[in-house]
């Protein structure tokens, strides 16, 4: 009986049906109110949202998670089985990349953090370790259409060196990212700052590297071959 269960768990058919199920759950969810922007899904860690949101909003994510769990197991077991049989390493590296990305989402869903602050020049905010972030200067350049074409803020953490923060160039401090989201220069310069913590970011990057490596190996192997 255990063998039958194991064979079911490693079967390609099970993987294909589970992928189909996850796709359908996400597709249905994309039309639901729960996925609508403004529904709060991006404002807090996923698990916190799932526990707080009414099931009428979150049902599709619960279904997707329920299907992703056996799909993850299926991918692990299939890879172990393929390696035991001495099959190509490339698809297994891609599976490993997928598993790391699942891990990344789990870590961020559990321990992620996001909070917005509006700070004028001279304003500051405190971190849990007691250090303070000080906004020393806010500046921007207006484009021909009147909108800011670039903006930046000079910030300092504790007694450290001042750093320039601008869009796509955040400041990192002990696992937190400090992002400059928006700037108003009149009547007084004010910066909208977002502080993020993404504990899954390293796993997402590792997963991306494993997946890409496996993908490139697979492309090389398939060159000139019909399959």
């Amino acid at each position, binding site marked *: 009986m255990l063998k039958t269960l194991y064979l079911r768990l490693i079967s390609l058919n099970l993987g294909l049906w589970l992928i189909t199920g996850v796709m359908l759950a996400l597709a249905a969810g*994309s039309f639901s109110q729960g996925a609508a922007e403004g529904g709060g899904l991006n404002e807090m860690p996923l698990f916190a949202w799932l526990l707080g949101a009414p099931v009428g909003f979150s049902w599709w994510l619960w279904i997707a998670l329920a299907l992703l769990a056996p799909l993850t197991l299926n991918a692990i077991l299939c890879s172990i089985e393929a390696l035991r049989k001495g099959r190509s390493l490339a698809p297994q590296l891609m599976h490993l990349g997928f598993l790391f990305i699942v891990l990344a989402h789990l870590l961020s869903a559990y321990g992620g953090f996001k909070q917005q602050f509006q700070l004028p020049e001279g304003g500051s905010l405190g971190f849990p370790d007691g250090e303070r972030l000080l906004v020393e200067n806010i500046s921007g350049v207006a484009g021909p259409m009147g909108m800011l074409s670039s903006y930046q803020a000079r910030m300092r953490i504790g007694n450290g060196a001042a750093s320039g923060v601008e869009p*796509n160039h955040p400041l990192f401090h002990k696992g937190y990212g400090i992002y400059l989201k928006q700037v108003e220069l009149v009547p007084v310069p004010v910066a909208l700052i977002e502080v993020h913590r993404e504990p899954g970011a390293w796993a997402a990057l590792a997963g*991306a590297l494993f997946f890409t490596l496996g993908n490139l190996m697979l492309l090389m192997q398939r060159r000139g071959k*019909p399959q």
Partner: protein
Amino acid sequence: MKWLLIASIPVYLFGSFKRPIFALAVLVELVYLASRGIGLGRLPLIGPQDTLAFFSCSIGLMALPFLFTRELAEEEGLRWSCGALAAFFAGLALPFPTLNMPLPPVLDTYWFELHVALAFFAYALFGVGALLGGAFLLKGRRSLLDLQYRAALTGYSFFSLSMVSGGIWGYYAWGTYWLWTPKELWTSILWLFYSLFLHLRAKGSSWDKGFAWLGIVGFVVTLFTYLGVSIFMRSSHSF
């Protein structure tokens, strides 16, 4: 220089039967995009006009290596289909106004340009794959199915790289490598669809017709991810 984009349409529609003329149409579109890019100082990837023109040119560009293979040397109909698909999206771009503003600061990074360009190369390859699948269903030649698989695998590779570069851009721009928006949900659906599609190859020749049909369905999912989400859903993450 919009006349170059307009000119590419009849060249595709009336000349794609011949490979050199197909290549000429691609070149005309490339010159158009290059002139836009030089004028803007960036890749033209913002707004429906630029993205549709970029998509059209990507279809031509990605189809070229396939059309020059020995297996497709006699496939005039398939060449015309690829040309017609590129012409369709070039035509679709024309009514929209061009957006000539500089990039908003948050989009002004190579990660964003890489993310979008790779996504369009992938979409184009999924389109070429769908046409190859259709040709297989009509003619039953196994080599067409093998080429469809290659188009899908290469497209899947571009798409995965696009998701990676998008995640890196998102992490530096928004503070997170992932946002729950309809666009990202459909991006995941598309990636999962082609994961399923490529796994299905392992089922063997009994699935040949199903494989070809799924390649066509995949392009429908692609179009919904690109255009449908922007048209039917509210998402900050659209063109």
